[in-house]
């Protein structure tokens, strides 16, 4: 448990992707089975142990610590599980419990928390926190399941696509997986309707495209929805995201549309009577574990497919895209809320550029260009598939606050809050962390140091003088932001040293884009 607790602590404080990967790799190399398997499950979100609630936590600590001292402590610490881990009486002897045993207790414990209390009684501070974070289902590590699988691939012979191919058929503590990584036979999936690795594209532009023979490519709209893999396997139906998360429970209406046997690749959208709705509508349905009837009626799921991995028992992935597409076009889906994404009829790259510049719907975020001969391979191979996104939206905003970055940017002010005018005042509309070069970062940092008006801990308020051009992919209404709008993917595209702050954009210019 101590090693796992240290792992969680290190991951929580480490910001860099590579550094996180290194920490996890070392842990997985140094930790024996089955502990490392349970750790992997916890980190990749495969271990659902939400059996400790706040009421139970409070009851357990109330039996051990004066309530006033608890309140003072909780006020200071700000996190219930951590407060309890810190306040819990220290064990009389210094020994360690295996993660496997701790998971066993968490999986089987009753509601009164006696088993959990007995477990905590034997652990040191860090291990207590790890147990409580596991039990409250609140690890928050900033490390994706895909990243964890990438580390597994780095550690051994099997490649990432090979691991991803069977990942979803595996269950913790993954003894067969680790045996495979150590050189034994690959595990045989027995799971129904498994997820398959998704094929991703790389960005491109007109200049790059001009070097390619357009006749070898097929072009489609790029839909601003969420990429999904639709699996219907002998009656078992699942909707996966492109990272393999099963979101079926949140989209029962999508499941209902899936009247076929196979594995299809496509986009999950919201659509009404054949009309695709903007991303903002789909967003209303994201991040939910389940969905209400009213929600489904107001924001109904729409499936637009563009590729085929498996169809009626046959694996099509090694067939060329042209053959997969021909097969797809021969299918009639019974529901009007499910169809095949149309191909764009273009004879020159300029034709495509013209379509991209003026798409018929706001839910189109660019175009896709796919080599007709391409096989379907998981991951992001360079070459066969390209995305050419529409140009970003731009505004000129004024830098208002800055904060220092971390890792490579330690000591540089690299996190910026910017605002636009509303009447006579500047209102914050977003934050940007990147978009500038290293040289520009140095210049920005210098500007911040010279123009700080006030400090709040690590945050500096700036003299509102510097205008930056902010590029972003879209705009949503937001009740959480003072300005009422929230940008998608904002970044600083240019620093306008030449432009006076008074000439920055007004909020009305942003609202017009909604």
């Amino acid at each position, binding site marked *: 448990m101590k090693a796992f607790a240290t792992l969680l602590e290190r991951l929580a404080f480490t910001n860099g992707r590579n550094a996180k990967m290194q920490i996890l790799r070392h842990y997985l190399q140094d930790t024996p089975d089955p502990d490392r398997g349970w750790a992997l499950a916890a980190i990749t979100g495969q271990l659902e142990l939400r059996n400790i609630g706040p009421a139970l936590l409070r009851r357990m600590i109330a039996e051990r610590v004066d309530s006033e001292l608890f309140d003072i402590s909780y006020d200071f*610490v700000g996190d219930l599980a951590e407060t309890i881990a810190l306040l819990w009486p220290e064990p009389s002897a210094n020994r360690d419990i295996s993660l496997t045993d701790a998971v066993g207790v968490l999986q089987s414990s009753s509601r009164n928390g006696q088993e959990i209390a007995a477990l905590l009684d034997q652990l040191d501070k860090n291990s207590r926190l790890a147990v409580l974070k596991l039990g409250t289902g609140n690890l928050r590590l900033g490390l994706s399941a895909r990243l964890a699988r990438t580390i597994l691939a780095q550690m051994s012979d099997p490649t990432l696509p090979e691991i991803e191919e069977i990942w979803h058929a595996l269950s913790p503590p993954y003894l067969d997986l680790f045996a495979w990584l150590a050189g034994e036979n690959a595990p045989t999936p027995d799971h129904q309707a498994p997820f398959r690795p998704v094929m991703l594209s790389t960005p491109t532009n007109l200049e790059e495209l001009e070097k390619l023979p357009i006749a070898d490519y097929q072009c489609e709209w790029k839909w601003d929805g969420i990429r999904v893999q639709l699996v219907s396997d002998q009656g078992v139906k699942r909707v996966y995201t492109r990272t393999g998360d099963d979101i079926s429970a949140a989209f029962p209406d999508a499941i209902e549309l899936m009247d076929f046997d196979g594995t299809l690749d496509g986009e999950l959208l919201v659509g009404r009577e054949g009309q695709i709705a903007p991303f903002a509508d789909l967003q209303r349905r994201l991040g939910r574990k389940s969905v209400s009837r009213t929600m489904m009626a107001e924001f109904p799921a729409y499936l637009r497919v563009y590729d085929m991995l498996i169809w009626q028992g046959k694996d099509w992935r090694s067939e060329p895209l042209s053959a997969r597409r021909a097969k797809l076009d021969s299918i009639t889906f019974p529901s009007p809320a499910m169809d095949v994404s149309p191909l764009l009829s273009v004879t020159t790259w300029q034709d495509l550029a013209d379509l991209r510049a003026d798409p018929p719907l706001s839910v189109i975020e660019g175009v896709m260009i796919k080599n007709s001969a391409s096989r379907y391979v998981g991951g992001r191979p360079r070459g066969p598939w390209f995305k050419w996104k529409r140009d970003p939206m731009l505004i000129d905003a004024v830098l208002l606050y800055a904060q*220092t970055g971390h890792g490579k940017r*330690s000591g540089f002010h690299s996190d910026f809050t910017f605002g636009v005018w509303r009447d006579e005042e500047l209102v914050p509309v977003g934050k940007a962390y990147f978009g500038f070069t290293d040289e520009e970062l140095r210049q920005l940092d210098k500007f911040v140091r010279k123009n700080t008006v006030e400090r709040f801990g690590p945050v500096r308020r700036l003299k509102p003088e510097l205008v930056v051009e902010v590029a972003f992919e879209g705009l949503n209404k937001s009740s959480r932001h003072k300005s009422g709008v929230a940008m998608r993917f904002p970044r600083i595209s240019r620093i306008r040293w030449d432009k006076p702050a008074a000439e920055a954009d007004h909020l009305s210019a942003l609202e017009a884009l909604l």
Partner: protein
Amino acid sequence: MIAKRDTALADTILFPRPEGLYCPLGDFYIDPVRPVERALITHAHADHARAGHRHVLASQQTLEIMAIRYGEDFTTHRQVAEGEIEIGDISVSFHPAGHILGSCQIRLIPKIGPRIIVSGDYTRTPNDICPPFTPLECEIFITEATFGIPVFRHPDPVEEIRKVIASMEEFPDRPHLIGGYALGKSQRLIRLLRQAGYDAPIGMHGALKRLTDYHIEQGVDLGELVHVDGVSGPRLCLAPPSAFSTPWVHRFRDPVIGYASGWMGVRARARQRRVELPLVISDHCDWPQLIQTIDDVSPEEVWITHGSEAGLLRWCELTQRPARPLRLVGYEEEDQ
């Protein structure tokens, strides 16, 4: 054991004024935050030891550190505290507090009335740079409460410092920079690193040089230290925390930044600092030590100066010990 004295007169012997804790019997202040005629200084941290008092009474080392920091003319009259010293109508004596080099608790013994100990900042954690705090008999014990909340239980500092060594093994290509207050904490970190078996040269930010040199002069063995100037340098460097928000840090490529303070025991506080390697190493008492000390000293009354007094007051209430906050202002939290 001498019989306990009556505490009734305590309020007339020592009480807070805007300048600091004042004793009219000797017409002096203890750790005043503004320039005064006569000051007794517990230790040389900047919030306790300020320049500009006319008379300063403190330990030899505290006086010397003040001279290094503020210049030889930091005061007009210096007196080294040795043995019992009569000041006006009261007798004072200085005793080790275990906090930093030269740190003392001060005991006041009036002719009539309670004996009072002003402990200054102190810790019970072993620190081989300075002699340890010893509990002394008194009726009024004045304690700080920097970590006066039961969530603060500082781990063994040698175990904590091993985290630095483990991180250097985990990331052999990244320089490690550890932040710690220039006086006391930095030298303590070096001692702990040496105790944990780290014997390679350790880099020092320029701001740490004078005070570190002083520790070496005083016989503290810190091993090989090198000044950090160029791009190439030792893999492990110490710096004052403020250096991490200056361009000084730009000379290091992708550093692991650590920070040593008792506050690192709470994650939100560590995150606010944006450090990758929080080290719970403090030169203050943690909660169990505060309680242990009050138990050891066993005074008639506990007065609490600065820090998180609410927690400690509640504990005194629960254990039926008379206690009150003094609400002194001008003293900072550890390393803030």
